[in-house]
C-alpha cells in the first residue's frame, strides 16, 4: 500500500484549526505521526510551538482526539514514565508518547530523558528539532547550529555574529544510551517517517527515541512554500542524515552518494545569510566529520 493511502485510512487525531504558522512542517509531522500512533495513545506536549498553537487546548477546547497534556518544560520523560508505570500495573498496552521541541529535550529536559532511557522506561520520545526556542521568538538552544542568527545570538550591524558553538549531536547521544531504538526523521520523507514510527510502536523493552529536523519557517527565515524543499536539502546535503539504530545496529536510511554542497541548504535560510566563505567551509567540514563517523558506525 502506498503511504498516502495508508495515512488516508488512519484516523486524524489532531483537530482541524490549530493555529500553526503558514506552511509549518511541524504541524504536518505531528498530524502524520498521530495518525500512525492512533487513538490508543497518551501524549505529552511540553511548552513550545505545538503547545502554543493549541494542540493541548485553548479556551476550553482541545486540539486532540487522544488524551493530551502539558508536562513541564523539563519533566516530559519522567511524567511519561509515571503514566507508563500505571498502565504496566494495569496490564494495558497504551502508546505513551512525548512530542517535544529541542529546548524541552536537549536542554532543560535532558536529565530526565537520560534517566528514563537508562532505566529502560517504555515510552516513545519524539523530539521535533527546530534548532531553538521558537515559540518565544527564536532564542538559541543547545540544538541551534553554529553560525545561526537567533535573538540571543545576534548578528552585529557589520554582519558578524551568530551562534559560536556547533549543535549537540543529540540522536547520537541518545544512541549512546544503548536504548532499543533511535531514529532520525525528516518531514520531506513521509514514507520513512511512517516506518520509523511503526517500528517505535513495536519496542516493548525500553525507550524509543525519534529525532526530527523541522526547519522553522519564521525563525530560520524560510519561504513557506519551500518548507519541504529545505527539509529535503537538509538530508541531501548530509546536514541531517537519516539513520536508525536498532538494538545497537546502525543503519543509514538514505545513502546520499552525491551530496549537494551545504551552501545550497544554507542559502535558503535567512538565519545563515551573514556567513562568509570561511564560516560556510567550517560548517561543511563539520557536516563531513559527522557523516564520516556515522558511516563508520554503519559499516
Amino acid at each position, binding site marked *: 500500500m502506498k503511504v498516502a493511502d495508508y495515512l488516508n485510512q488512519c484516523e486524524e487525531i489532531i483537530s482541524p484549526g490549530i493555529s500553526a504558522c503558514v506552511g509549518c512542517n511541524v504541524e504536518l509531522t505531528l498530524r502524520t505521526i498521530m495518525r500512525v500512533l492512533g*487513538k*490508543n*495513545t*497518551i501524549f505529552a506536549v511540553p511548552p513550545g510551538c505545538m*503547545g502554543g498553537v*493549541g494542540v*493541548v*487546548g*485553548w*479556551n*476550553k*477546547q*482541545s*486540539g*486532540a*482526539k*487522544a*488524551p*493530551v*497534556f*502539558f*508536562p*513541564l518544560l*523539563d*519533566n516530559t520523560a*519522567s*511524567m*511519561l*514514565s*509515571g*503514566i507508563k*508505570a*500505571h*498502565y*504496566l*500495573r*494495569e496490564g494495558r498496552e*497504551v502508546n505513551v508518547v512525548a512530542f517535544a521541541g529541542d529546548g524541552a529535550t536537549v536542554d532543560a529536559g535532558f*536529565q*530526565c530523558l*537520560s*534517566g528514563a532511557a*537508562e*532505566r529502560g*522506561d517504555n515510552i516513545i520520545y519524539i523530539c521535533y528539532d527546530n534548532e531553538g526556542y521558537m515559540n518565544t521568538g527564536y532564542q538559541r538552544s543547545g540544538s541551534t547550529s553554529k553560525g545561526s542568527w537567533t535573538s540571543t545570538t545576534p548578528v552585529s550591524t557589520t554582519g558578524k555574529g551568530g551562534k559560536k558553538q556547533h549543535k549537540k549531536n543529540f540522536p547520537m547521544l541518545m544512541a549512546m544510551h544503548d536504548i532499543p531504538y533511535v531514529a532520525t526523521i525528516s518531514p520531506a520523507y513521509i514514507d520513512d517517517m511512517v516506518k520509523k514510527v511503526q517500528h517505535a510502536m513495536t519496542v516493548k523493552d525500553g525507550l524509543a527515541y525519534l529525532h526530527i529536523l523541522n526547519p522553522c519557517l519564521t525563525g530560520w527565515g524560510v519561504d513557506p512554500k519551500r518548507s519541504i524543499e529545505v527539509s529535503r536539502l537538509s538530508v541531501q546535503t548530509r546536514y541531517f542524515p537519516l539513520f536508525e539504530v536498532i538494538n545497537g545496529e546502525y543503519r543509514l536510511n538514505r545513502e546520499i552518494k552525491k551530496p549537494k554542497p551545504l551552501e545550497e541548504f544554507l542559502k535558503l535560510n535567512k538565519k545563515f545569510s551573514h556567513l562568509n566563505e570561511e564560516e560556510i567551509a567550517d560548517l561543511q567540514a563539520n557536516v563531513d566529520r559527522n557523516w564520516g563517523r556515522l558511516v563508520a558506525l554503519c559499516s
Partner: protein
Amino acid sequence: MSMVDVLNGNQAAAKGAALSRPDVVAAYPITPQTPLVEYLTQFVANGELEAFMSEVESEHSAMSVVTGASLAGSRTFTATSSQGLALMYEPYFRASTLRLPVVMAIVNREMISPQTVWGGPQDSMTLRDAGWIQIYVEDNQEILDMIIQAYKIGEDSRVLLPVNICYDGFYLSHLTERVEIPDQNSVDKFLPDYTPTHIKLDPKIPMAVDPLTTGDLLMEYREKHMVAQQNALKVIQEVNEDFNKVFGRNHHGLLEKYRCDDADVILISLGSMTGAAREAVDYHREKGLAVGLLKIRSLRPFPQEEVSEVLAGRQAIGVVDRNVSFGWNTGILYQEIRSALYEKEKPVPILPFIGGLGGEDLRIEAFISCIDRLKEARGTQQKNYPRTCWLNKKGG
C-alpha cells in the same frame, strides 16, 4: 492481627506506605530520607510491596513520575528532604494544582547554607503555600498511622489534594521506638482503592489536561483549591476519628492540647520537639504555674478557628519555631498563630522563640525558660513584642 515492633521513623514511614498499597513509588535518596528509599526497594524486592518502583535520577523526576502515575489513576508514594524538596518545587506545586492525591513523606532537614544535613522543618514550612496539605508529626507511631490516614484525607472527594507527612530528620527518622503495625486486612478495609473521577489520562476517556487557561478560569481553579483546603479541616478530623475507632489510636487531628483546660499561659510546639515541651509543662505545673501546651499538627490547612478557640482568654502565649521567616524576625508558625488570633483575641503577649535549627537539640531546659518568659509576660503590653528569643547556647 496487628503486631508490635521496634522501628525507626523511616521504617515506620516505609511500613505505613507499604500498608497503603501504592501502585507506583518513585524516590531519590537524600540524607536523612535515604533509608526510607532502601526499605521500600527491599519491600518490593521481597514481594511485600507490589508496586512499580522507579529509581529515578533526581527528586524532580521523583515528583514527576508520581504525578504522571497519579494522572493515569495510580495511588502513589514518594519521599524527600531539604534540597531534594527544593529541587522538586516545580512539579511539587503542580501536583497540588492538578489536584492529585499524591502522598509524600518529608523527612525534615535544614536548608543550606551553611552546609548541614541535620533536622529542622525549614524545607517544608517554606513551601506551605504551594497548595499541599502538610501534617507534622511527633513520633514514629504517628508517622506510620498518618501515612495511611494521608491517603484517606487526600483521596476524599471533598479534598483531592496531595498530602505531606512531615517528620524531623534524625530525631525521628533514625530514632527507634515501639510501633504498633496494623494488619493489612484492617488497613484495606479502612482505605479502599483509589479511583479518580476528576482527572485521568486514559485513551478510553480522552481528555486534555491543562490546556492554556485564561485568568478568570484560573481564578476559579484557585478558589476551588482554597475551598478544598478548608474542607480538609473537617476531613482530617473525621479521618482521625475513623482511624481511632478502627485502630484505637487518637492522634488528635488538626492539633493536640496538653493540660490546656485551665491554663493561663500556653506554649505552642510542632513536631518532635513536643515531647520535651510536655516535660517542661509538667515541671512548671508542679511549681504551681497554670501552663498548657498546644501542638500544631496541620500547618496546611491551618486550623485558625480551632487555634483561636484554644488560645482565647489566655494571659500569654509562646510559639517555638524550629525555622525562620526571613523578613519577619520570627519563625513561620509564630506568624500563623498571630494571624489566627487577630480577629478573635484582645491583644495578649505572643512571644516568638526560635531554636533547634540545623539539628540542634531543643532540650527540656529551653522549654522551661520559654515558660519562665511567658510567666513574666503575663499582663504586660503586647507592643513590646515580637522580639524573637533565640534558644541557643548564648541565650534562651
